[in-house]
């Protein structure tokens, strides 16, 4: 199935104040896109809205995934279509055992409503080893007392378990040390063996060196103001967002 994500003229408000003001983005299967932008530009709002967070109101525009209108679907239904969001700040769910939670999620995602328990455990152990995680994590409360780095690894472990068609990573690299970043990237790259598309939201160039996006977009004040290839990263690092504003203005006037 062609799992293409198409975001068209998306307007989003929270508590009546507009955050996204006409976002357009198209991610085809197998593509890796990066989304950058200054704080407050709406990056995290976009990721929450893609996954269906009930606090946000879509006032205009559309999002489709593989031809399905996502705006009609609950978060769990989007997950079952193969979408995944790696959270910037994963919440703790005290007392909910990691392996039991992952099994419930894997069952819920699986078309038959159930995965084979033996295979599941085998995969879980293998994935944890691959992410260099202590096996004891499987029996801890979900994100309960986890460090920032442990939480991010847990997000990637979930991603490996659920094998989504499209993953959105919301600043997964923020606060990670070099080793953790390497492990996280290794985990994501493992998914690339299968048809898999990715939207990486980040402030930093470093993770992009690992994940090698072909497309880069810059979000400012609720709009994608500039899109390009990997070369944009270098320019951004050197010249900052003020340059983007000018470049965006030029691109726009050229289009007119």
């Amino acid at each position, binding site marked *: 199935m062609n799992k293409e994500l198409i975001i068209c003229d998306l307007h989003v408000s929270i508590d009546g104040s507009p955050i996204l003001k006409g976002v357009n983005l198209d991610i085809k299967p197998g593509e890796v896109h990066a989304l950058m932008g200054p704080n407050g530009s709406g990056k995290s709002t976009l990721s929450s809205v893609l996954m269906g967070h009930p606090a946000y109101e879509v006032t205009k525009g559309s999002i489709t995934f593989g031809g399905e209108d996502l705006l009609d679907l609950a978060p769990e239904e989007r997950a079952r279509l193969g979408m995944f969001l790696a959270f910037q700040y994963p919440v703790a769910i005290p*007392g909910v055992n990691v392996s039991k939670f992952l099994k419930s999620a894997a069952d819920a995602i699986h078309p038959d409503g159930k995965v084979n328990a033996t295979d599941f455990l085998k995969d879980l152990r293998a994935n944890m080893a691959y992410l260099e995680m202590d096996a004891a994590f499987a029996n801890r409360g979900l994100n309960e007392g986890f460090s920032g780095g442990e939480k991010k690894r847990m997000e990637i472990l979930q991603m490996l378990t659920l094998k989504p068609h499209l993953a959105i990573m919301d600043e997964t690299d923020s606060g990670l040390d070099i080793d953790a970043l390497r492990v996280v990237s290794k985990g994501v790259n493992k998914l690339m063996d299968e048809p898999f598309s990715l939207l990486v939201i980040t402030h930093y160039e470093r993770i992009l060196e690992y994940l090698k996006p072909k497309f880069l977009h810059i979000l400012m004040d609720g709009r994608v103001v500039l899109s390009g290839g990997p070369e944009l990263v270098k320019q951004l690092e050197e010249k900052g967002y003020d340059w983007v504003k000018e470049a965006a203005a030029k691109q726009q006037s050229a289009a007119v």
Partner: protein
Amino acid sequence: MAKLETDSKLVQDYAFGFTTEIEDDQIPMGLNEDIIRMISDKKNEPDWMRAFRLKAFRHWLTMTEPKWAFLDYPEIDFQDICYYSAPRKPGEGDDVDPELARTFERLGIPMNERDRLSGVAVDVVFDSVSVGTTHQELLEEKGIIFCSFSEAIQEHPDLVQQYMGMVVPYKDNYYAALNAAVFTDGSFCFIPKGVKCPVELSTYFRINAENTGQFERTLVICEEDAYCSYIEGCTAPARDTNQLHAAVVELVTLDRAEIKYSTVQNWFAGDEEGKGGIYNFVTKRGLCRGAHSKISWTQVEVGSAITWKYPSCILEGDHSTGEFYSVAFTNNRMQADTGTKMIHVGKNTSSTIISKGISAGKSDNSYRGLVQILPSADHAKNYSACDSMLVGPDCSANTFPYIESENDTAVVAHEATTSSISEDQLFYLRSRGISEEDAASLVVKGFCKEVFKKLPMEFSVEAVKLLELKLEGSIG
């Protein structure tokens, strides 16, 4: 009186709400000295027992109903209750009345020895009387006494006289005095010196008859170095009138003995508008009389229209330990005021209180607890954690912790949190494909996990299922 309309979802969900058609032996309604003598006659009691009842009744007449709890209910008319109701011919063991056997089969409690639950000895109390106790041979071999309270009065009068009222005197409180006057049955357990009870001891309480109160009394004694784990379960038919349940439970541990007491209380809670349901006024208290002894209360309270219940420990022996683990779930118009008292008397005594309250619907759920350190309790320690979770905007949660320390060497720590079931937690789980209802259920079960893991294994599975059932329809 009419049974509740069965189209109410709540009543449908309450799988235990059926009535057993059985011929009852009932005494007239009302409460006076003649009624008490009548109960005593029915049970063919010795004079000392009758005297105890009458003394308690006369004292009760001088008392007034306590009003300090965070509960709101109409005045109870104690003359409008029947204080004794028993199946006319219950039968015993394999000869038990087939209608009764069917009832308990439906409740999942096989009564005959052939189908008995492995690892659990059960005493079954139906309305005012015990209708059978399983596993007798195995227990007798070990010298363990596990029988109905009525039987204990007849067969073990010395033990009953020695211990009854030791922990909860008849003067203790309004409902304890009432219970002492009119109690009809209950369970009696005695574990002699050095014996570790090899099976779970369990009592299943069932209220069936209408307009009947259930007043049971349970007494568990563990002598030196003895151990037992005791489980209590309760259900009642769904009726549109309120019924009164006022029990007394007394536990005594001597040196190095341990009692683990677990309850799953699932009395009928009334319908969505708060019509019907059990008024549950219970006094439960344990006395750690011996040094290094331990009493642990675990309760899962998911039923009753009104719950007024504070399982407590008096830590008299040096180095004795008291524990209280509680999950109290309220929904619709249910009201619960529950908690514990830990009274530290001996040196180096320690207590732990873990309370989890979950309120949904339009219910009120209060934790009320007292930690008291007496001057003699050098180096006493207490840790209390009381967490409340609100499900929905129309419910309330309250915490009333009282700490009274009269000894400077004591260490008392109290933590309390109140949280709503959070949108972010639900979103997180839902984004992994888990439905909203399952996500809420996961969060609540996780919240209660610390308490559930204290329950005996099979019981814990049951408690989780029960809570899931109760949560259905209260989310979203």
